[in-house]
């Protein structure tokens, strides 16, 4: 009994890395622009598709190549999303960008359905090999690989944010856009760069979801959007460590409940978890200390 619990917990936490990455994407864009980008999960899955289809069209088979292509394609999609949904809509009107990103979500989904004729496509696993046994516990190597790639992506992102000029500019814009502009930071360029960086991150997440599920389908987009947003809120808006911890937590939590209560009730408990957080800790796990909105 105990071992089943542990097994589902471990599997869930490992796959939860993908939720973390999507959550980081939402949180970063929110931190910099104070806007929600609802098309983010669909852009991520779209990028993963692009990687697969582009490499497939070129006759390649390497899973690594698919991953790199997915990240690059999702970065480009991120830039397009910025141009079409944010750049020309007044910043004082959050409802406008909310709606335009919904339109973008539907558009990307439909392009994917068109390109694949609505059929789910098989996705190559990053690594295949025998399961690792820890006592009675089995650790699936593809899940472990997903976890490792996720951690690596987060580390690179943290370095980028805290050790580079672009990161400095991004953090400046997120604190005070006007002051940042007065210091000579090109606001639109930093915003666009944030979209490209989060896009790349999303592409990696999308490819990892494809790799861990074994296939990709446009049906993944909506649940992923909801889970990503939940992770963002539970982790605390704008907090990257929060998004990471919350992603792993939600992943483990839902997998354990899936084991005990079945797949149809699983998400009900995730929503309840969110409500518990909203009532008792509305700021999330790692709430920002200063309120400057």
């Amino acid at each position, binding site marked *: 009994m105990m071992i089943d619990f542990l097994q589902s917990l471990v599997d869930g936490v490992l796959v939860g890395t993908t939720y973390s990455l999507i959550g980081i994407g939402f949180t970063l864009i929110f931190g910099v622009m104070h806007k929600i980008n609802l098309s983010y999960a669909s852009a991520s899955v779209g990028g993963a598709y692009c990687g697969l289809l582009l490499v497939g069209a070129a006759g390649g088979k390497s899973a690594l190549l698919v991953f790199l292509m997915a990240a690059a394609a999702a970065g480009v999609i991120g830039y397009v999303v910025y141009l079409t949904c944010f750049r020309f809509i007044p910043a004082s009107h959050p409802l406008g960008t909310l709606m*335009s990103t*919904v339109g973008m979500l*539907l558009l990307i989904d439909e392009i994917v359905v068109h390109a694949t004729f609505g059929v789910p496509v098989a996705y190559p696993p990053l690594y295949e090999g025998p399961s690792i046994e820890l006592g009675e516990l089995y650790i699936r190597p593809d899940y472990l690989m997903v976890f490792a790639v996720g951690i690596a992506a987060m580390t690179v992102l943290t370095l980028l944010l805290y050790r580079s000029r672009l990161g400095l500019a991004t953090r400046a814009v997120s604190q005070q856009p006007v002051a940042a502009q007065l210091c000579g930071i090109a606001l639109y360029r930093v915003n666009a760069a944030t979209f490209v960086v989060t896009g790349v991150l999303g592409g990696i997440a999308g490819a990892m979801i494809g790799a861990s599920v074994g296939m990709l389908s446009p049906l993944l987009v909506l649940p992923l959007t909801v889970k990503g*947003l939940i992770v963002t809120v539970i982790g605390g808006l704008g907090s990257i460590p929060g998004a990471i911890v919350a992603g792993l937590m939600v992943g483990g939590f839902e997998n354990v409940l899936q084991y005990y209560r079945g797949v149809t009730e699983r998400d009900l408990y995730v929503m309840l978890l*969110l409500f518990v957080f909203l*009532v008792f800790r509305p700021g999330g796990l790692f709430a920002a200390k200063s309120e400057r909105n």
Partner: protein
Amino acid sequence: MDFYLALLQVIGIHALIGLSAYVVILTGQVSLAQAGFFAIGAYVAGMLTVLAGWHLIPALLAAGLVAGAVAFLVGFPALRVKGLMLVVATTAFGEAVRLFFFNFDYQVAKGGVRVGPLGGEGFKQIRFFPENGYTTLDVLVFIWVVVGVVMALLWWMDRSRAGAVLRAVGEDELAAQAMGIDLTAVKVAAMTAGGVIAGFGGAIYAHYTTHIEHFNFGIVLATFAIAYPILGGLSTAFGTVVAVLFIQGLLIEGLRFLGDWRNLLFGALIVLAMNLRPHGLLDAATTLRLRRLFGRGGAGRDA
């Protein structure tokens, strides 16, 4: 002809869910819970007419009341947060309602057939309209009478003090609070009103399709609900109806000749519309111009 009548029925139902989101958005809150209230209305009204044998009108009112009561209860915890947090909280609530009906069984044997909601298979045989001999036109009239009543009430509210209070909260919470407006009371009231309207919409929807399933009430419907008022503009309730006509009439039915390409254009046109008219199709300036055109509300009133 029947095709256009059916289209007008769909537009009427979507107008109701759009208007339910409109009331909430007036206070500056984006609620993705409307599909949840809509689902509650649909199931409550369906169970009342099918299982309890009620007439549709009392069932409709009861559905509105139950959905409104749930909205009232959800409003208190949910409206403590705003912005993105509220979007997520209400999304989660809507999904929780959907998942509840996904796992909800309550079947009763009636005349040898078991009727009632049955989990994932949905709730079949909500046959009030056919059993009572309503024609398509009758149903259409019924739907638009309800829409008309709701529109009239909203129009009246918009011109009264209540409308000004809602808009004040939507424009600037801090300023509204400084004027002595109780923010929580206003937001919860708007949420409750939205819940009642969505409940009406759901009740009609259940009887219009005769078969409801949990996935009718997912995030897509919730997104459409907020899309109507945002696309239409918040200056009058008519904007919401214009947006429903734009989406259901033009984008969905009008572009049907494009076949598969229609779905592609759908998202692209929403993006385009938001870029060209960020404040909605019927924004404040257009409303003012229209008012002048019809000789009402001079420059002094709206300037």
